[in-house]
């Protein structure tokens, strides 16, 4: 056999190098877990706005941790300090690690200066979820919106982030848009930095 004896044997588990390992988890396992998360939160609330808020809070905790981890792992302990930098970090790096692909699009809002949109044709968390008619415009993407808010907030870009369904012409299913509305101080700082 080739390579026999060449692999260094580590007697202590702590001395073994940290491998990146297999980075993917089963989609089914995730879908069931997420489904339970939604169902549990549904039993704790009495209106849809509250449910949305709870999902967002759950995502916020993920976002805060993900930012820490990926600034360390991907960017050598450096963090984006500019608005467009952090947005593309979310759109590319974070999305790729969490969902295995770059987000479909990142756009600037046309009506307001402080709004940005990340759009997904089919958001991973919504892959198996059909919203009942009586729940109106509720979107489980609130969880992802929470993740984005967690990342931005902890990077020093406080923002209000919401998830919306946007109908697409010629498509049966609407796409999901994550709307990011930055706080005033963020834009003021950006303007100062030039």
């Amino acid at each position, binding site marked *: 056999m080739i390579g026999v004896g060449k692999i260094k044997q580590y007697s202590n588990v702590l001395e073994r190098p940290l491998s990146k390992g297999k980075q993917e988890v089963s989609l089914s396992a995730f879908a069931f877990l*997420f489904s*339970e998360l939604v*169902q549990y939160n*549904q039993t704790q609330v009495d209106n849809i706005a509250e449910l949305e808020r709870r999902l967002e809070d759950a995502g916020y905790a993920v976002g805060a941790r993900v930012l820490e981890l990926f600034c360390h792992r991907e960017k050598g302990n450096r963090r984006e300090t500019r608005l467009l930098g952090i947005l593309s970090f979310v759109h590319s790096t974070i999305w790729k690690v969490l969902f295995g692909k770059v987000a479909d699009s990142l756009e600037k809002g046309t009506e307001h200066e402080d709004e940005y949109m990340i759009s997904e044709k089919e958001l991973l968390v919504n892959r*198996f*979820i059909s919203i*009942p008619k009586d729940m109106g415009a509720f979107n489980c993407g609130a969880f992802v919106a929470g993740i984005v808010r967690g990342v931005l907030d902890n990077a020093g870009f406080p923002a209000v982030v919401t998830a919306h369904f946007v109908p697409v012409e010629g498509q049966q299913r609407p796409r999901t848009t994550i709307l990011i509305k930055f706080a005033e101080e963020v834009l003021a700082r950006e303007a100062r930095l030039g």
Partner: protein
Amino acid sequence: MAAIYSLYIINKSGGLIFYKDYGSAGRMDTNDSLRVASLWHSMHAISQQLSPIAGCSGVELLEADTFDLHCFQSLTGTKFFVVCEPGTQHMESLLKYIYELYTDFVLKNPFYEMEMPIRCELFDINLAQAVQKERVALLGR
């Protein structure tokens, strides 16, 4: 001509949780479809008892003069069955595929309550596509 007449899904206690009608032949009202579903549930259970073979899992195919009925029972006792034109092929694989769609778009949906009627948009969309594909395959024969 439509080869598949209708599709039923019944839960483990014999309640109809999904019914879809394709093609004009043998159209039924809601009460009749409920009756057929619970009748089939009981017959299926009786057939298991009557079978001379030990460990029989029930009727899989019922052939009549005017229709074939293919049945698939999942491990949890949910039954899927299609009523189709006599001699229609590949119904077992279609049923397995529908079971797959059920596990994906119904069971992973947090807004679906177990054993209750299925009202999931994504399941409907994917099911329509699957049946459509089946039809195209049949036309291509």
